[in-house]
């Protein structure tokens, strides 16, 4: 009993010191003492982020074979490759907290781990590639710029690197959307349709309203998040909406307007039922996306066995 009390006392003291470090703006590094809940939250967030990058290769990767110019094909292969690279840094960042790639992969492929809801929407046309770049990567950059300030060093540094690449993804998407918005009638129709389908899911991907986000206060206190979901969403709309409208596109929210008094964009109600359906696995492409990842994993099993077999033979000679 005494021992447990001592441990609790120690824990409290260490937690206080840990929180003081965060308050001073210090980075927590791999191997530093941290509360178990901090470590768990980070593994949850970082691995979820890694899975999102990995599965996020699919909706755009599907369009690589159909890219309409050599330049677009080159850009798109490079972009989807960057997503694989981001997945790789993030899995490594989570490994610094004691998670293994195998455990994370298992949680991902069995559906236990979550990933960003946005990748469960279909990419129906080539214009979706542009819209994903502009809106989805734009929303992701907002979130990731915040996470680059995060208190955990390895995650923060991964975010700095990822944000630099995401900025290029965002730029190519925007360039494509603007070109098609001023293009032929077929191109204009295609790009408007992509906006109609991606606007609301892009707002949703920034997470539930603050009132419905139970993890946020603790994450803010520990410097993992430095802004709330609603704050980030507001920044995203303020940046994107005027540019979409200037391109002559229609945002599919009749209530969206800029409120002069508060200096805020006011948007119509978000369909959170849809969001939770998608998060719980019932979105339009959940089964297809996870199915494609599982298939690739199963098809690759013999390759991974061969690598092990080769490594063992190489060691024994």
């Amino acid at each position, binding site marked *: 009993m005494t021992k447990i009390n001592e441990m609790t006392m120690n824990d409290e003291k260490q937690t206080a010191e840990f929180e003081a470090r965060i308050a001073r703006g210090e980075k927590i590094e791999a191997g530093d003492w941290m509360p178990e809940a901090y470590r768990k939250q980070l593994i949850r967030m970082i691995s979820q982020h890694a899975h999102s990058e*990995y599965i996020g*290769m*699919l909706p755009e*990767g*599907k369009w*690589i*074979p*159909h*890219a*309409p*110019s*050599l330049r*677009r*094909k*080159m850009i798109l*292969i*490079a972009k*989807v*490759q960057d997503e*694989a*690279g981001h*997945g*790789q840094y993030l*899995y490594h960042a989570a490994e610094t907290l004691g998670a293994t790639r195998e455990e994370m992969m298992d949680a991902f492929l069995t559906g236990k781990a979550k990933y960003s809801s946005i990748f469960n929407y279909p990419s129906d046309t*080539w214009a979706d590639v542009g819209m994903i770049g502009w809106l989805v990567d734009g929303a992701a950059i907002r979130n990731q710029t915040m996470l680059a300030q995060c208190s955990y060093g390895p995650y923060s540094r991964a975010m700095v690197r990822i944000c630099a690449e995401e900025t290029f993804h965002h730029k190519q998407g925007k360039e494509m959307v603007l*070109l*098609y918005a001023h*293009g*032929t009638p*077929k*191109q204009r129709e295609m790009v408007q349709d992509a906006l109609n389908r991606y606007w609301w899911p892009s707002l949703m991907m920034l997470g539930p309203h603050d009132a419905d986000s139970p993890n946020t206060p603790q994450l803010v206190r520990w410097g993992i998040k430095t802004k709330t979901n609603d704050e980030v969403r507001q920044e995203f709309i303020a940046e994107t909406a005027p540019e979409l409208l200037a391109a002559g596109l229609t945002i599919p929210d009749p209530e969206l307007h800029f409120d002069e008094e508060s200096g805020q964009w006011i948007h119509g109600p978000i369909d959170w039922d849809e969001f939770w359906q998608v998060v719980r696995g019932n979105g339009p492409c959940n089964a297809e996306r996870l199915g*494609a990842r599982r*298939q*690739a994993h199963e*098809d*690759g*099993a*013999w*390759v*991974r*066995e*061969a*690598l*092990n*077999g*080769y490594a063992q*033979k190489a060691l024994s000679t």
Partner: protein
Amino acid sequence: MNEAVTGALTSRLTALADDELILAQRNSEWTGHAPILEEDIALANIAQDELGHATVWLGLLEPFSGRSPDEMAFFRDAEDFLNVQMVELPKGDWAFTMLRQYLFDAYEHILIEALLASTYQPLADAAAKFRGEEMYHLRHTHLWVERLGLGTDESNRRMQDALDILWPAAGQLFVPLPDDHLLVHEGIFPDLAILQDQWVAIVRPHLTAAGLTFPAEIANTAARGFHTEHMATLLADMQLVARWEPDGEW
């Protein structure tokens, strides 16, 4: 350069571009579906390099053909493509993709070394530019051949199945175009018969060391321009969006 040589160079540049373009198309189909995340990255890199080379070859071709690289890629039909058949075959399993890439990389490696001495400066310049990338590709696929050939019984069997198809198919890489001799005479392009000997000297010992056996040598000697049934569907996929709105700027 007289008209006959220009014509020969036009066909040869088309063949160089089409091999790389179609192989890049097949390799890029793996992006997001590779057996390990690290290979999604590596193969996407190889596909980008090939696509880059195709773009350079098509650019060199433009003054002769009068058609832009995009027009050449997206608005030609199968019969106008001069790639070898092995690059248009479906991607198959990882053994097939890696072995195809290895056989092609070894060919491209010696081709590029030979092109460094081309009397047509743009070809020599392009070869100098590609040289480093190709060394890296060959190193990468050389190692994969070894790992899969010697890994497990299953990986060896899959590699053998791939070699049974690809060894004869690769023969077509060394079939000259009808007017290639004009280019060889001018020192613009190397003699493919010499390259073939160099290629065999590189790949044969390595494939043998990887535990693979060679099928009877009935090499594919079809002229370039004849395609498998897979080419039409490959092009339908590749040209889908560009041809959906041919008046658009993409």
